């Protein structure tokens, strides 16, 4: 065979394989890649969304972002969300998974099924239910706290008080997530070879040592995955905050994504909203890379 014929055959073979990827790639490019560039372009302009022409303003939107006190407030809230989400649901999921994998526990399936349910529920429904639970008049949370005679609590406005609203929201958010973490950890634990644990027991390790020196290192991959997922998710968090408080009261539960949304679609400042969105994307990209680098080192 001549070289050209060989090359032609190779090309056809490549193309036949490439064809499998084409549908996914096409839609990905149309609905993700091209819009991102569109957003970048809009971020350099000032635009109200309706006028056919946009005004080019260079880096003005970005300068505005970095001198906007609300932006920093929002980032602070995202960071708070990250820390809480990693400490509470992920850790809780891990502990619960370890508990459930104790050899004497029966009916694991029941637990697995029920713990996962909060993850499935629409966040609008979560917002309605938790909104009621937090209601200062009849909310069940107020009544439980009141039962323990703390601060005379049944009149706390969980969602209307600027200082505690974010805590209230993050608790509701964690409720939807810890079950998911537990189920994932459960499966990971099932994959651990029992002999590792047996060795530790033979060596005389107590449960605490077993936990730190045997189980956690073996779960490193899963922990990394869930922490990364929580990290990205906490920067992206939108639905639950938007539904329950819209970022209020007075921006005390504002996060970057809700701020971007109201800038673009409520205030019609599409250029500013675009800039915020791009800044958010960059922040996520950088923190993910830093985290992955740090997680891989060990």
């Amino acid at each position: 065979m001549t070289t050209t014929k060989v090359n032609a055959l190779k090309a056809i073979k490549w193309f036949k394989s490439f064809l499998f990827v084409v549908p996914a790639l096409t839609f990905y490019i149309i609905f993700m890649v091209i819009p991102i560039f569109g957003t970048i372009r809009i971020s350099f302009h000032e635009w109200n969304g309706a006028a056919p022409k946009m005004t080019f303003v260079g880096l003005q939107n970005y300068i505005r972002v970095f001198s906007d006190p609300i932006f920093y407030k929002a980032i602070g809230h995202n960071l708070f969300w990250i820390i809480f989400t990693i400490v509470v649901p992920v850790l809780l999921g891990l502990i619960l998974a370890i508990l459930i994998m104790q050899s004497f526990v029966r009916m694991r399936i029941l637990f697995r099924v029920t713990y996962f349910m909060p993850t499935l529920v629409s966040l609008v429904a979560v917002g309605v239910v938790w909104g009621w639970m937090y209601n200062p008049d009849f909310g069940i949370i107020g009544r439980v706290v009141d039962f323990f005679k703390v601060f005379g609590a049944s009149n706390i406005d969980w969602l209307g008080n600027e200082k505690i609203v974010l805590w209230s929201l993050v608790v509701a958010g964690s409720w939807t997530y810890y079950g998911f973490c537990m189920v994932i950890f459960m499966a990971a634990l099932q994959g651990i070879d029992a002999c590792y644990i047996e060795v530790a027991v033979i060596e005389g390790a107590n449960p605490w040592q077993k936990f730190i020196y045997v189980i956690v290192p073996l779960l490193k991959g899963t922990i990394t995955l869930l922490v990364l997922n929580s990290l990205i998710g906490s920067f992206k968090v939108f639905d639950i905050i938007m539904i329950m408080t819209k970022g209020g009261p007075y921006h005390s539960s504002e996060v970057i994504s809700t701020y971007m949304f109201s800038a673009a679609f409520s205030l019609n400042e599409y250029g500013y909203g675009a800039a915020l969105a791009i800044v958010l994307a960059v922040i996520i990209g950088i923190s993910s890379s830093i985290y992955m680098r740090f997680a891989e080192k060990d």
Partner: protein
Amino acid sequence: MKKIGNYLLNNIGKIIVYFVLIFFLIISVMPIIFMCLAALKPAGDLSDPFALSISLTLDNIIEAWTRGRMNRYMLNSIIVAVPRVSVILLFASLAGYAFGKLKFKGRNLIFAFILAGMMVPIQAMIIPIYYNIQQYGLINTYWAMILPSFGLSMPFACFMMRAFFKDLPVEIMESATIDGSNEFNTWLYIMLPLVRPALLSLLVFEFMWSWNDFLLPMLMVYEDSYRTLPLGLMYFSGEHTSNQSLIAAGVAICILPIITVYLMFQRTFIEGITAGAVKG
């Protein structure tokens, strides 16, 4: 008495473990159950949705379904979910097979390219998407809610399918080729059935995301007749704030389908995602 005391003391560890597990089980399930119970309460008991009522009635559910237009919203959710899930599953399993098993130049680069999309927040895309959909006059249509999801869901879906295809033994593919099967037939008749757990898991995931999707419908649709369940529920609860049993009925209608789908597939579903998470 002494025996009971001894029993307790010896088993205190187990009791604590069960206590904790059951405690958090209750926390997970309680709000959902409360909602369903509140939906079944007669509309008269307004003041306190958390009080338990003896009389149960389906009236609220019926009213939410008809007068509250929940039937319309559910229909819309189904109309949007079916194409979304089937097309995403199809494209992702095609691509996942290629990424996991077929060797072609640039494969890993393209995969990394698509994977990067998982990190990008949807906010970075919606302004142009919204504008374009407006330009093409597709606001208030089903397509507006269906088409963008094809692109937005691809990263995760491809990631998951690839992980499962990768783990399949190469020999099967090779023997199929030796037997004269072309790539497409190999994919369709041999590889695809082997990744059934992954497909079912992805199906549940994508169905869940489609069903619960709130942002895309909110932007793309403002006419009531096109609203999907979450959107409808949001406006519904805003409209009827005083009638809490009715709202509870709306919530119940919204969450029961996905819970049903989950219960049907839960075993395979959980096996699928946990395998994906532990492998990936």
